[in-house]
């Protein structure tokens, strides 16, 4: 299998490898049916270009997007817990943006119908910064923000 995998790697990158593996029956085809990673959205440094890369939405501030289990002060910027819940009907995705990180977008969660619009994860923060929760619902974007103070930056080096 290892040799095949190398051939697969040589013959194409990212998704085509997944497709090859799926075709060979090594991984579940349903799991392999993933969209491409949005590389443009993960290389942006300001809100405008990030929003543009994510679908060119104009988010409105919303009290229906809330942080939970998220600290006001993070002692260790390498591991900052983030929880976001959306009460916006028809929520399709939730994104976490950290304004002062080298790249603004940290994570994007796409939620099919039947999945509750609420996620938790842990992110790195370089320094004290506003963190944005961006929700897409019915083609519209909603946003809320929260400042998290970082005592020790999370980028190492």
């Amino acid at each position, binding site marked *: 299998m290892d040799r095949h995998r190398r051939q697969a*790697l040589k013959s194409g*990158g*990212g998704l085509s*490898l*997944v497709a090859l*593996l799926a075709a060979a029956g090594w*991984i*579940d085809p*349903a*799991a*392999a*049916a*993933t*969209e491409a*990673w*949005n590389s443009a*959205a*993960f290389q942006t440094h300001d809100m405008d270009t990030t929003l543009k890369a994510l679908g060119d939405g104009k988010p409105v501030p919303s009290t229906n997007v809330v942080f939970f289990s998220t600290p006001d002060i993070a002692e260790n910027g*390498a*591991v*900052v817990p983030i929880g976001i819940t959306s009460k916006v009907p028809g929520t399709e995705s939730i994104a976490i943006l*950290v304004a002062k*990180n*080298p*790249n603004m*977008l*940290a*994570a*994007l*969660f*796409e*939620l*099919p119908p*039947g*999945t*509750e619009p*609420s*996620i*938790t*994860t*842990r*992110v*790195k*923060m370089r320094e004290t910064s506003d963190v944005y929760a961006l929700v897409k619902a019915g083609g519209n974007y909603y946003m809320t923000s929260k400042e998290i103070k970082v005592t020790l930056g*999370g*980028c*190492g*080096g």
Partner: protein
Amino acid sequence: MPDPMKIRANLVGDSTEVKVLMSHEMDTGLAKDSSGKIIPAWFIQTVTVLHNDKRVLYAQWGTAVSKNPFMSFRFKGGAKGDKVTITWVDNHNETRTDSAIVG
């Protein structure tokens, strides 16, 4: 071969709560090692979660997700004995799939 994920899938009311802890360095490509050399970016880019064979979550991640990523969420439905399968793919095209039974 990357280390397995730790997955918990439990019924909570009429939903299934999924918690997963992955084993991955999640290097940003910005940090340096002890000899001053840049450690290249190495991070999980996509995560797919299936309930039996239906997709219940698809995530795209950048380098800002913490080392050994943790994630939790809930989907409606699910029954004891159902299967939750999680697959991640990183920027080296390394991939790992693990599953858990809903308890």
